[in-house]
C-alpha cells in the first residue's frame, strides 16, 4: 500500500466513522467500556512516564541553569515543557504502543476469524460497533490521561526541586506561574485530543485491513504503532506551527 493510497483509505474510514456515528443504539453501550480500556487502563503507564520525566526535567534544568539563570526558572521549564510538549507527546507515544497496538490486534483478529463478517450478518454496522466507540473513547480519554500526566510530571519536578535542589517550594511555584498562560492548557488539550483520534483511528484502520492469519495480525499491530507514533510527531510539529 502506497502512502497516498493508505492516507486515502484512512480518510475514507474516517468519513465512514462520522457517518456511522448516527447508529447511537449500536455504539453507546460500548463507549464506557472502551473509555475504561483506552483511558483508565492507560493511567499507570502514562503516570509512570510522567513521574520520571518530571524528575529528570527538574534535575537537567538545574544542571543547565546553575550559575547562569535564577533557579526558579526550573519551575518555568518543568511547567512549560510538561504542558506544551512532553506531557502530550510522551503520553501519546505510550498510548500508541498500548492502545493502538491493542486495537489493531483485536480488530485484526476479528477480521481474520470472520467475526467482522459475523457482525455484518447479525445486522450490526461494523464501523459503528467497532470504530466509533474506540475513536470516541480516544478523543475523550487521551486528554484526560494527558492532563493527569502533566499534573504528575509537574508535581514530580516540584518535589525533586525542593528535595534535591537548593530551591524552596515558593521558588518553584513562582517559576511555574511566571510565564503560565491559560492557552498552554488549551494547547495541550488540543494536541492530546488529536493524538487520541490519531491513535485509535489508525489502530482501527490497520485492524480492519488485516489480511491472512496470525502473521497478518502481527504486521497490522506493528504498523499501527509505527504509523501512529510517526503521525503523533508530525501532528506535534503541525500544532506548534499553527498555534504557537
Amino acid at each position: 500500500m502506497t502512502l497516498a493510497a493508505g492516507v486515502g483509505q484512512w480518510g475514507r474510514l474516517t468519513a465512514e466513522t462520522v457517518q456511522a456515528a448516527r447508529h447511537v443504539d449500536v455504539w453507546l453501550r460500548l463507549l464506557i467500556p472502551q473509555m475504561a480500556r483506552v483511558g483508565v487502563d492507560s493511567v499507570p503507564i502514562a503516570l509512570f512516564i510522567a513521574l520520571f520525566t518530571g524528575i529528570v526535567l527538574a534535575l537537567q534544568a538545574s544542571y543547565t541553569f546553575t550559575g547562569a539563570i535564577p533557579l526558579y526558572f526550573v519551575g518555568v521549564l518543568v511547567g512549560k515543557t510538561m504542558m506544551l510538549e512532553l506531557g502530550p507527546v510522551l503520553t501519546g507515544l505510550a498510548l500508541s504502543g498500548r492502545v493502538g497496538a491493542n486495537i489493531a490486534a483485536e480488530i485484526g483478529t476479528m477480521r481474520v476469524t470472520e467475526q467482522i463478517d459475523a457482525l455484518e450478518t447479525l445486522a450490526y454496522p461494523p464501523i459503528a460497533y467497532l470504530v466509533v466507540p474506540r475513536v470516541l473513547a480516544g478523543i475523550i480519554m487521551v486528554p484526560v490521561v494527558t492532563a493527569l500526566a502533566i499534573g504528575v510530571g509537574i508535581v514530580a519536578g516540584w518535589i525533586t526541586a525542593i528535595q534535591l535542589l537548593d530551591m524552596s517550594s515558593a521558588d518553584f511555584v513562582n517559576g511555574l506561574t511566571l510565564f503560565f498562560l491559560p492557552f498552554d492548557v488549551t494547547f495541550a488539550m488540543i494536541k492530546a485530543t488529536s493524538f487520541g483520534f490519531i491513535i485509535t483511528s489508525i489502530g482501527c484502520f490497520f485492524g480492519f485491513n488485516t489480511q491472512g492469519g496470525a502473521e497478518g495480525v502481527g504486521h497490522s499491530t506493528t504498523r499501527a504503532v509505527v504509523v501512529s507514533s510517526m503521525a503523533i510527531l508530525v501532528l506535534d510539529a503541525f500544532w506548534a506551527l499553527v498555534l504557537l
Partner: protein
Amino acid sequence: MGIVIRDLHKSFGPKVVLDGFSVEARDGETLVILGGSGSGKSVTLKHVVGLLTPDSGEVEVDGQIVSTLAREELFELRRKVGYVFQFAALFDSMTLAENVAMGLRRKSDMDREAIAERVEECLRLVDLDGYGERTPSELSGGQRKRAGIARAIATKPQYLLYDEPTTGLDPVTRAMIDQLILRMSDELGVTGIVITHDMDSAFRVADRFAMLHNGRCRFEGTPDEIRACEDPVVRGFIEGRPELMEKES
C-alpha cells in the same frame, strides 16, 4: 421467494473463482452446494448476504437483488438471514449467551427476559444448555460450531446459510446438526443453503443438490438424480474417486 443466484462472476486478482454460477434455492427447501476446496462455495454464500459484491451477475434473496440494496436495506434483509460460519466466528470477548443474544438485540424487539429465554432455548436445541456463561475459548471445536448454529437460528430467520456445518465433528454431533437443519426446514419452513464436503450429511439434509465446478454449476438436481448422475466429475466427487475427476479434467 427463495434465493436465486444468476450468472455470478467473481475474481480475486487474476484468480477467477466464480465464472457464471447460477442456481436456485426454492422457498422452503434445503439446497446443498457441493464442490472441491477452493471451488468458490463460501464465496457464493458470502454474496447471498452481501459480504461480497459480484463482478457481474446477481443474487436475489426474498425478491430483492442484494448488490443493488443500500446499506440500510441490506441490514433489513440480513435480519431475515442466519449465517453459520465455517469456523463459527464467535465473538471471543463475549460469553456464549451474549453471542447468541447479539442477533436478538439487533434484529428483534424482545425485552431482556424474552431474549434470555430464547438464548436458553437455542442453546438447548444445540445441546449446549448450561454453557451460556462460558467464553468461546472454553469450548471444543464442535461446541463452538454448535454455538455458531445457535446464534444463527436465534432470530428465527427465514433463510439459513450453513458453511460446512458438520466438518470436523464427531458422528453423533453431525447427526444432531443434520436433524437441526431438517427441523429448521420441515417445521419452520426455512429456506437453507448448505455447503458441505460431508456426503453422508449432505444426503441426509438435501432436498436438492448443486455442484460447483470450475466456477460454474456442473450439476443441479434431486438426491435421486445425483445418485444416478453419470457425469464423471459429479460421480468422482460424491464417491471420493479423484481418478474419475482427473480423467475429465
